[in-house]
């Protein structure tokens, strides 16, 4: 996908997707003139197959599929260095947020990426227990991702130091936390939150 010939036409350029990104992020991608300052300062840039400036470039060309197919958006640490330093006021951190949200919603190629899986389990854990239950998170992540033995040997060490707990108690105010989730869901329905 990365190096595949790019056909450009009104049909192949998904302007609707870019409009969505712009609406969600509140930032124009057309403002970017590709100076590369975002990529220059990005701490995660070396891990990305598309550095931040290229993400914007692909959006300018209506190539949302190419962006979502990669993992770059999941490597973004949301440190906002790019946004802070951009000479054209392109809020790249917000664009990355929007892209992650759209990737989440879409049956996109990265739907099953481990980052998404980890994020989903993390949130589910909090909703169920009111706080993080690390052992369960690790166990379910390993099962669902099919890597049963991943980091297994760290378990005893962490347990002995008390960093992991075998059993977990629920947060006393679990009802309030459920309230937070409900409110966000409602806001999402109204389009007020990502």
């Amino acid at each position, binding site marked *: 996908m990365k190096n595949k010939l*790019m056909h450009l*036409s009104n049909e192949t350029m998904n302007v609707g997707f870019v409009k969505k990104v712009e609406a969600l992020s509140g930032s*124009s991608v057309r403002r970017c003139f590709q100076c590369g300052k975002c990529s220059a300062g990005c701490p995660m840039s070396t891990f990305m197959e598309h550095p931040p400036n290229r993400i914007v470039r692909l959006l300018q060309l209506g190539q949302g599929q190419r962006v979502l197919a990669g993992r770059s958006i999941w490597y973004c640490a949301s440190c906002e260095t790019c946004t802070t330093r951009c000479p054209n006021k392109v809020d790249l951190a917000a664009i990355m947020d929007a892209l992650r949200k759209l990737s989440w919603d879409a049956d996109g190629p990265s739907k099953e990426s481990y980052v998404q899986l980890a994020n989903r389990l993390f949130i589910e854990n909090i909703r169920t227990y009111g706080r993080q239950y690390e052992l369960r998170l690790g166990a379910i992540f390993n099962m669902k991702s099919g890597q049963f033995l991943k980091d297994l040997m760290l378990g005893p060490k962490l347990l002995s130091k008390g960093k992991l707990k075998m059993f977990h108690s629920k947060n006393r105010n679990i009802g309030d936390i459920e309230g937070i989730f409900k409110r966000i869901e409602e806001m999402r329905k109204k389009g007020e939150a990502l």
Partner: protein
Amino acid sequence: MSRIGVFVCHCGENISRTVDVEQVAKAAGEIPGVAYSCDYKYMCSDPGQTLLKKAVAEHKLDGVLVAACSPRMHEKTFRKAAESAGLNPYLCEMANIREHCSWVHEDREMATEKATGIVKLMVERVRKGKSLAPITVPVTKRALVIGGGIAGIQAALDIADAGHRVVLVERDPSIGGHMAQLSETFPTLDCSQCIMTPKMVDVANHPNITLYTYAEIEKVDGYIGNFQVTVKHKARSVDESKCTGCGVCMTKCPKKKIPNEFDQGHGMRPAIYVPFPQAVPNTPVIDRENCTMFQSGKCGVCAKVCGPGAVDYEQTDSFTVEDVGAIVVATGFKLYTIDRKPEDSPIQGYGEFGYGTIPDVIDGMTFERLASASGPTGGKILRPSDGKEPKQVVFIQCVGSRAREKGISYCSKVCCMYTAKHTMLYHHKVHDGQAYVFFMDARTPGKGYDEFWRRAVEEEEAVYIRGMVSRMYQKGDKIVVMGSDIQVGVQVEIEADLVVLATAVQAQDGADLLAQKLGISYDKYNFYSEAHAKLKPVECATAGIYLAGACQGPKDIPDTVSQASAAAAKVMTLFAKDQLERDPVVAKVNEKYCVGCFACKKVCAYGAIEEKEIRDRQGNLVKKVAYVNPGVCGGCGTCQATCPSKSIELDGYTDEQIMAMIEAL
């Protein structure tokens, strides 16, 4: 014994970096006849000049040598300073130890030795120098402007408004040039015709302007203040004094299918025509190559229908000689055309772009005509092959420009901006269309220029792709454009309906020939050279000739108009005086020894040498000798070198001076 002062300049670090200036000054002080020597950081600065003036007074100097940069740079400066100190300015000379020494050498010791040598020999020149007085010549307060585009029009109007008479000569049947062809102009998008045509009418109506269209420069004689220019008036076949511009001849002409040059060959015109409806003058011209009357001798319709009887098939080329004091050259540019290139052009075509073979690959000027309300499509963007409205248009920048391999290494300067403008015009006229631009760099320096380009991208939705196009080919009714986006690092393919090439700006055809007639210099691209890139940007090295517009190098309209007004201001400065002072470095004949062989006359490039008769008291002819007209003499010294009897000497460069300089080495 002479009392010469030597002043050695550091030129900041330019000289002192390589040359030990203190040692040079010290060595100069030891030359016999040098009464004073010193070194200073910037001799040309105000304190430097004051130093020179003070030394002249204190040490009673009778000659001054400034060892610094080239005399082309500062000779005038120092001669003025010497003059204000009471010295004859021609007793002040410069020793060039910058361009001729410090800039071209690295070894400090050897460079210092060379600088000392240069100073030594120049001291001898000053010693043998003579006081000279400037020559005065009368100024003809009438200017010639060559070229009737926006540059020539602006210069002509400015000079004429100042109260001087102007002759404007245009090669084509109408003035207006390239600007009249444009649809709208960046960065404000005002209609070119709307701002251009009033100026054209002003030229035609101005009492101080004599307008010659369909005319060319045949010959240029004379010198600053006193040029004699022969103008060739090409046979128009229509008597301008009789023609009323009614246009009946054009409507009745049976031959109507001739591609119109003004519309880049995309519109049609008759054989008797005006290039465009707003032409100035509105007098038609007969295109003899395409006229049935001239080709087969049968037709004559235009002469029959012409009420005032202005059509004249018998007309021939005529010539007039114009006396002018200054010349403004404003001959403009042409666009690099790949298919119509002359065979001997060093520029190779772009076979990969299919220009000239694929009908829907056009150049920028053709797009201007398509977008223009006065153009062949009435302002609708329709492609040439089938007249359909293109939905995908690809623009390619830097075609010809910045391509050393193709023979042009320079940037054409206007293409980035006009391509941005084209995408906007296209977007305004075809709302559902998409414009793509392949570019290497967007070069938009200028007031409001970058904002204009960003507007094309951000608001008018042009897709700019950094990268070039490798190939284009016809596929059905589409043109497949294969390029790359180097920011993403992928190959890009677009099926376009129309491709517009931003082709390079080049010097006009025949620019070199005109330069040779005028005696001005030009670069390897045939663009005219200014006297100094920064400090004399509108003057030619040849005195009295000024440059305006794109004949000097690619330029946009604001720059062209600025330069035209600047050239006009230079002409007005020249015309502000009745007498013109000239450098007295001219040749003089020693009539006693001259044998009248006139070898000098044969070699003189300026035509300055005349034959003079010497008669005794009874009026009998004794002999003929050479006489140098000081107003015409260019001071080149060729006659001095040629004269077999050594009876011509160039003031300021006498044999005595040169021999003394050689001996000093």
